[in-house]
């Protein structure tokens, strides 16, 4: 299987405000020398708590910000070395969905307009038939193009955000806490949808979450981050069966349904 995304020794530092006038503070290392690959049609899960650097890593993969060291190769091309125009041409190939679909959809624009946005950004025409087909693909109706975000439930809004992300037929989908704000029953629907789309379109998925249970349900490989440093990485089955680090173990404990007392299985 061909490597879709190759993250090589990526580091990102942020300067910290000075506490004293004549003394620089040591920078905060948000992501520290992370290397990982995603093959076509595979899912990589990145797990960590707040401040672990998982979202910073996602932003670098999306070329929203550049690493201080290391490189991100998308199909062999260093995305941070591209010109603006080259990046614009490549963007339809990798798309992102966020935690809060309400915040990422323009409330004054129709669903059809929002879903077509990545096409317009890439200078393509927004073919109504393609928009309609994409909405149906994520379990919405073609007639929903003329409705507005507030007319949908949280789960349906996340479907709209997914439609917008896949409308350009990308090869890579980056999902940052995409199901964290959803109810358990709705979350299962969205996770299944992502798995279906992956099968259908051969998507590579970078799936970021703080919840190990969610990650384990759809990921092939796993990367556990803590304070910007990789604590553990490898096949999801291997790590979940035998976590090699105490931190992974804590995350597992938090995610597991442990029954105690009378009647516990």
């Amino acid at each position: 299987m061909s490597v879709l995304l190759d993250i090589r020794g990526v580091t990102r530092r942020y300067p910290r405000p000075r506490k004293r006038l004549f003394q620089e503070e040591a920078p905060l290392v948000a992501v520290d020398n992370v290397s990982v690959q995603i093959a076509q049609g595979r899912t990589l899960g990145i797990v960590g708590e707040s401040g672990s650097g998982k979202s910073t890593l996602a932003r670098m993969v999306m070329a929203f910000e550049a690493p201080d060291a290391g490189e991100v190769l998308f199909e062999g091309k260093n995305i941070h070395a591209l010109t603006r125009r080259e990046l614009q041409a490549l963007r339809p190939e990798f798309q992102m969905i966020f935690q809060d679909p309400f915040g990422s959809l323009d409330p004054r624009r129709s669903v059809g307009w929002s879903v077509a946005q990545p096409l317009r950004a890439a200078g393509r025409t927004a073919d109504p038939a393609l928009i309609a087909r994409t909405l149906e693909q994520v379990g919405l109706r073609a007639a929903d193009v003329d409705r507005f975000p507030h007319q949908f439930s949280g789960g349906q809004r996340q479907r709209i955000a997914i439609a917008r992300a896949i409308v350009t037929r990308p090869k890579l989908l980056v999902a940052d806490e995409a199901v964290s704000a959803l109810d358990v029953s709705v979350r299962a629907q969205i996770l299944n949808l992502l798995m279906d789309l992956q099968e259908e379109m051969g998507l590579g998925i970078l799936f970021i979450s703080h919840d190990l249970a969610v990650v384990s349900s759809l990921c092939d490989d796993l990367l556990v981050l803590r304070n910007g440093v990789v604590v553990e990485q490898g096949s999801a089955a291997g790590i979940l069966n035998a976590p090699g680090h105490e931190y992974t173990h804590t995350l597992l404990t938090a995610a597991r349904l442990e029954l105690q007392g009378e009647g516990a299985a």
Partner: protein
Amino acid sequence: MIEVQDLSVRFGEAEALRRISLTLTPGERLGLVGESGSGKSMLGLALMGMLPEQAAMSGRLTIDAHDLSGAADREWREMRARKVAMIFQEPMMALNPLRRVGDTVMEPLRLHLGLSKSDARRRALELFEETGIQDPEEKLRQYPHELSGGQRQRVLIALALACDPGILIADEPTTALDAHVALRITDLLTRLARDRGMMLVFISHDLAAVARTAETVAVMYGGEIVEMGPVGQVLSDPKHPYTKGLLHARPTITGGELRKRLPMIPGNVPALADLPPGCRFSGRCAVELPHCAGTRPAIHAVGGSRSCACHRVPEVMDGAME
């Protein structure tokens, strides 16, 4: 002791809570679990006498033999000062950012218990120690923004415990916290309830957190308790189709079965006004019968102290539905 009998809360036509009945004995830990719109927070507010003004409550609510159904604001204020305390999801929002946290915790001690300033300070220090706040002396002087999320939640727990309440209502207290911090907060709440003989109402959408914290669980859907019983029994052998669906829809970490499609509950949680008049879960239920949507299911006893509100309970009990 808390006794709730046929408690309903209406907002005009919409019924936010429908015929809730439950009993809580001193030291008991009850988990209220459900998705958004299930009514779990509304029930928490009802137990605190803090329902919105437009809400019309009916039914009976007694706390320590005080009948509080239709109690006046003054009576509730007294209740909240001494007997019932509450903590919330976002501790930053519940603390005054301009006050040192020590002063915030000392306020009820001075106001309600009439302690002198130095006594209140000593008591606040003890409460900080009891809730596991490190360097309590120093923390008393700090402002909310100087503390981490977990420490802020501990400060709020200390504040809630200030007047030695018999009941602590915790509404999603761990949802905004990181996993390892959340584990310690649920441990703390469990220990406090046990050591103090305090009733704990733990409200959460997180089944794992409820399983760790509560002894009894009430599963809520559409403003009703659909199933209730000892947490281990309910979650290992659920009787209600909704509880079953919820448990199955939850990804489990088995290690062996990765990338498996999750069994889904179809549809969305309907808005309050759109709930079916009969069984609230009809329309999404896998074992629904034609009369379910129109007729309210009775609350059936299903062995031991367990109950389940479903028309199909008799068949479930016969094992005919497996």
